[in-house]
């Protein structure tokens, strides 16, 4: 039993993440791999890479839980769970006092309420439009001719800000174009964009209610500027994992382990 290992595979729209844990819950391997157009293939490759990274043989893995939009395509998985449950469990594992999880992914954002064991109590999810997701920021970064890292710089959110009022991604993009045409400093535009996305997320958080500590997961959690503004708006500290984008896979691995124990 001691060398039993468990895998979580999160096939998202942008990246496929694999986390391997041992029976003590310690992470043994962690891989982030671009999903591309074939989720099944990406899952297989990422999984192989993780095994290789950990120096682990396939038969040591006792259970694999697949999650994310491509979860149904992971042929080698022993089960599948939604990323909503997985982010709850993963966040709880990293920060045991977590009561609320904010997961901002590329395509959607969710707020999840969890109990003392990381089990989901309630959740809310953004509507179909891209406002309040990573995609919104990507579009804006492209318009500002900068990469996401530059855009995330927390220095941009400390000074003056312009109001980006449109929530629609297309309209907001045209607002940015016209602000640039008026020679508005880019920092002010970035500040405005961060505040616009935070307003959307804040609304979702309030709608479901805050309990316990808040942990932020998903790729967008790496955006330091956004985290700063969100903390300001909520008046609370946010737990930010070192690798926020692999929290879903981590949660999946823990669910794999739990399920294995239950059997």
């Amino acid at each position, binding site marked *: 039993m001691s060398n039993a290992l468990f895998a979580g595979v999160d096939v998202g729209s942008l990246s496929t993440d694999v986390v391997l844990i041992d029976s003590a819950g310690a992470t043994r391997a962690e891989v982030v791999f671009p999903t591309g157009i074939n989720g099944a293939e990406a899952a297989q490759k990422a999984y192989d890479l993780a095994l290789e990274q950990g120096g682990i043989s396939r038969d040591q893995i006792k259970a694999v839980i697949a999650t994310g939009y491509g979860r149904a395509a992971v042929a080698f998985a022993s089960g599948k769970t939604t990323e909503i449950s997985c982010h709850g469990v993963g966040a709880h594992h990293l920060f045991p006092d977590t009561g609320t999880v904010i997961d901002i992914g590329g395509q959607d954002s969710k707020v999840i309420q969890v109990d003392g064991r990381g089990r989901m109590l309630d959740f809310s999810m953004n509507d179909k439009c891209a406002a309040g997701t990573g995609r919104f920021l990507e579009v804006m970064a492209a318009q500002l001719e900068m990469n996401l890292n530059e855009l995330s710089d927390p220095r941009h959110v400390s000074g003056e800000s312009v109001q980006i009022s*449109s929530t629609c991604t297309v309209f907001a993009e*045209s607002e940015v*174009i016209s602000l640039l045409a008026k020679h508005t400093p880019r920092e002010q535009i970035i500040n405005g964009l961060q505040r616009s996305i935070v307003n959307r997320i804040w*609304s*979702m*958080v309030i*709608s479901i209610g805050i309990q316990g500590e808040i942990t932020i997961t998903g790729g967008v959690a790496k955006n330091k500027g956004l985290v700063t503004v969100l903390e300001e708006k909520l008046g609370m500290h946010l737990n930010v994992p070192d690798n926020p984008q692999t929290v879903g896979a981590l949660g999946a691995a823990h669910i794999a382990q739990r399920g294995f124990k239950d059997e």
Partner: protein
Amino acid sequence: MRDVGAPALMSFRDLTRRKSRPVPEAFGPPLRSNKRLKEILGRHYFLSRYVPGAKKVAWVTSGAPVELLRAFDFYTIYPENHSALVGAKKNGAEYCSIAESDGFSQDLCSYARIDLGHMLSGKSPAGKLPRPDLLFCSNNICQTVIYWYKTIAHELNIPLIHFDAPFVSTKQSEADVRYMAQQLLDMIPILEQVSGNVFYLNDFETILSRSQETSQTWGTILQTMRAKPAPMTIFDAFGHLAPIVSLRGLPVAHDYYNILLEELEERVALGIGAITEERYRLIWDNIAVWYKVRFLATFFAERKMNFVTATYTNAWAETTCHLDVKDPWSSMAKTYGQIILNNNLKHRMGLMRDMIKNFEVDGMVMHSTRSCKPYSVGQFDLRRALGAELNLPAVIIDADIADERVWSEQQIQTRLEAFCETLEDAAHV
């Protein structure tokens, strides 16, 4: 008939405090009556702070038969006004998101979301609104107000009186009038109970005839804009609409419009226009874009274009001819049941055709607003039909009354500029 008179109505405090902004060259001298308007509305909202305990407060929709409430001495507050004010201050998104975070969809009317945001948070740019003892709504402006008001009734646990106004698909039937009149009569015992006041028919008749006179004066005021140049713009009229909406039936509104009419007639006699050069005359359709009134007013004034008429400023003058003190109940049913938003599109088309002809209008701007389905569904067809029949250039802008998050300045500016070019081309042919 959705209310539009809010900004002038409640932002007076700000206006008196801060130095007035310079009037751009494109505009003529401002109206003297503005000052009086601010005093009247200022007093009304100032007094509202001291109302609880002294009078019962009713929250009322803009199209409701408020004369009946006046007979019981209710202090009336118009949430639509308040939401328009919030919108004009560009705070719409903030209030809306309070309602959204409480579970209201962002696809709902922004007046309603702002008001619910106000109810949930207690926030208001007008200081503090007195808590209602009674809610009074009529679906003659939209079905939305029933949902909005019944939500407040549910949250605050207070009585709601709803006046059901059947939509006029072809013409108002005798049964429609009977039904509405009966509803009004049935309200009397409830209003007596909530207000603690007794209903006196004599008082009610006085209020009714005062209300009718006021509406007629308002109609005459709008008619002064047939003059070339028009003595005020429709953007001014949005502000001066406030008393007819929210103080209708009270002596103060009655007297105010006589003063305003006098000034406008004087301007017409002297040939003073609202804009320095009026080359084109326009009609506005639908409620204002509250957070962009200044932008739009300046945009058109700079191009020597003036809005001389609008479908809704007219709404408070259009059907009051039916009021009859001798037959109050049925005549109120006719007055309130047939207003533009409770009437079919054929009726609206006829009304707009007349306005375009009488006011010698050269072009039409329609605001398609997400918030208001009764006002917006059908605009595409109205535009085509009026355009074809009267050879009238027209443009539709897609925006919202009070939620600034759906405004796309670039798109709208391009559309409006193209419209102006068409208008100028048409004039040169």
